[in-house]
């Protein structure tokens, strides 16, 4: 089991190194960093001095190593557009995105699993069929259209909820601002988190349903019924647990995807998070911000995947190889 986890950590580091290489190449080769930092009036000495200062005269592997060293310490250079350190901008924006992603993720997981289980158990029921048909439309709907539709209904027509921004936020500690503690902050969260969570919820629901139907066909479920266990025990203790084995991986991936898809929701709702920052960076080709965002999101993805792999060992006893069976 330990060997398994160590191997997974090794793979994660490899992925991060590859992504780091991509991010560094963007940094180094897209446009000329010198051009981006110095204005029109520059002397050859200025250019040379900056080249040495930035280490651009060093061989490629050395530059890459230095980049990684900097990245590990949270140093991603200076935004071309805002002229401030990228890490500072990211830190300032991160709470908004993380709070939005957390609420959406909870919505997606809780409702996704509940509806998936419901539609699997009531396979032929009318309500279940309606939910399934709606979900197909949900999968085809582009996220931004859902957001616009919600804004139209609840902001334009009904005027109940705000259509943009985070509402009032409260400062906690040095660098965290939260929208959870004010009424307007919570109201502002509703529409964006539904928009962001809906698609992932639909995916999780459809997956849970199909996996659960598969599990319900298994012999051990028939045997559990033949032993006279109640429907509740059969469905929730026996079937649901087995359903979760494949579902956990996908949920992990979906949580990562939520952070990435936040880009779209943040644009629709002008939510001041890292996603909106990233989109603006692309529009203005602000490479340091793009590279930093890429690194940040990779660390999150890889971290989530690692957690999922470790979770597996707890869910599925067959993976706990250190205990040997009798044969």
């Amino acid at each position, binding site marked *: 089991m330990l060997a398994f986890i160590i191997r997974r950590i090794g793979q994660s580091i490899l992925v991060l190194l590859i992504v780091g290489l991509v991010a560094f190449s963007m940094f180094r080769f897209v446009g000329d960093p010198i051009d981006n930092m110095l204005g029109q009036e520059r002397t050859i000495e200025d250019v040379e001095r900056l080249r040495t200062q930035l280490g651009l005269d060093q061989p490629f592997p050395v530059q890459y190593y230095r980049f990684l060293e900097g990245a590990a310490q949270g140093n991603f250079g200076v935004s071309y557009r805002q002229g401030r350190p990228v890490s500072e901008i990211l830190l300032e924006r991160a709470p908004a995105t993380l709070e939005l992603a957390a609420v959406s993720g909870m919505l997606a997981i809780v409702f996704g699993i509940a509806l998936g289980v419901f539609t699997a158990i009531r396979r032929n029921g009318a309500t279940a069929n309606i939910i399934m048909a709606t979900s197909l439309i949900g999968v085809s709907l582009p996220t931004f259209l859902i957001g616009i539709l919600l804004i139209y209904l609840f902001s334009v027509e009904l005027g109940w909820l705000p259509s943009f921004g985070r509402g009032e936020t409260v400062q906690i500690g040095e660098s965290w601002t939260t929208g959870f503690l004010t009424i307007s902050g919570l109201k502002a969260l509703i529409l964006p988190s539904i928009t962001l969570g809906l698609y992932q919820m639909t995916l999780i629901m459809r997956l849970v349903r199909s996996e659960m139907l598969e599990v319900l066909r298994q*012999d*051990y479920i028939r*045997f559990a019924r*033949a*032993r*006279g266990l109640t429907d509740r025990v059969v469905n929730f203790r026996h079937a649901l*647990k*087995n359903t979760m084995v494949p579902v956990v991986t996908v949920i992990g991936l979906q949580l990562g995807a939520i952070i990435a898809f936040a880009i779209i929701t943040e644009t629709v709702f002008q939510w001041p998070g890292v996603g909106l920052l990233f989109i603006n960076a692309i529009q203005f080709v602000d490479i340091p911000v793009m590279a930093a965002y890429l690194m940040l999101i990779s660390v999150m993805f890889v971290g989530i995947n690692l957690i999922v792999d470790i979770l597996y060992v707890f869910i*599925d006893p067959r993976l706990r190889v250190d205990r040997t069976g009798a044969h």
Partner: protein
Amino acid sequence: MTTPVLSIRNLSVEIPTRGGVVKPVDGVSYDIAKGEILGVVGESGAGKSMAGNAVIGLLNPPAHISAGEIWLNGTRIDPLQGEAMRRLRGKEIGMIFQDPLTSLNPLLTIGDQLAETILTHLPVSRSEAEKRAVAALEEVGIPGAAERIDSYPHEFSGGMRQRVVIALALCAEPSLVIADEPTTALDVSVQAQIIALLKRLCRERGTAVMLITHDMGVIAETADRVAVMYAGRLAELGDVRDVLTAPQHPYTHGLMASTPLASLGQRRLHQIPGSMPRLTQMPDGCAFHPRCPQAQDKCRQAPSPDLADGRASCWFPMMAEAAE
């Protein structure tokens, strides 16, 4: 005369399909007395498992009981639905499935699975249930039961897992056990042990057993009486010695002739020509007539007679001398 544990009367199971209604079980009747082992034999698709599933109320929809009655210890159980039927399962009727590798939930320890079954059916405390779980494992011959109770199914071999399955089926002391091909998926070397175990446990407790199998050898060794099924109907029913040594139905005769049984002193193995008809394409008259060496005009026109009149459902049962 005491009431039998299980009594099936004219049981029919129907499945509506696109090509019309099929009857995998058609008018079957038999009894099983306390402590008796009834072997149910037939080719796959003959309806033997379907009859077992009907008894325990686990027919997969759209299959359903369309006619007949099922009585358990003098109570009629076929009209029971949902919760009432569930209470019988495991408590009054235990079931053993074919493949021990897939019958156990891989994510729960065998102790958990035993304890939950005991707690469902018996008014005992959690700790008492755990004690009984260990006892149940000891009874089925699992060495070091107290330590193995927290093991997961994948930590046992196939034969050991089938022992666990038997413990699970018997842990609430049911009066009837339906064993559906309990040894088919096991190594030949383990088969005899499992059958012997099942036989011993049921004899000790006086449990009635419906042993579904296609293995004549298992029947000869274990069963008290035997029911031979063909295409959803009962072909022959009688004491195991009579049926095996002097089969009256030509199908049973063919089945015996195609089974290598040293004890019966056979000349050479025989094959029944053709194959069982599909349920959607049942022939008129007796279902066996296209393969029957003794078929006559009557067999082609009239369905075979009911068993009530004799041991075999055949217009021209083979008598002892004909079978020789």
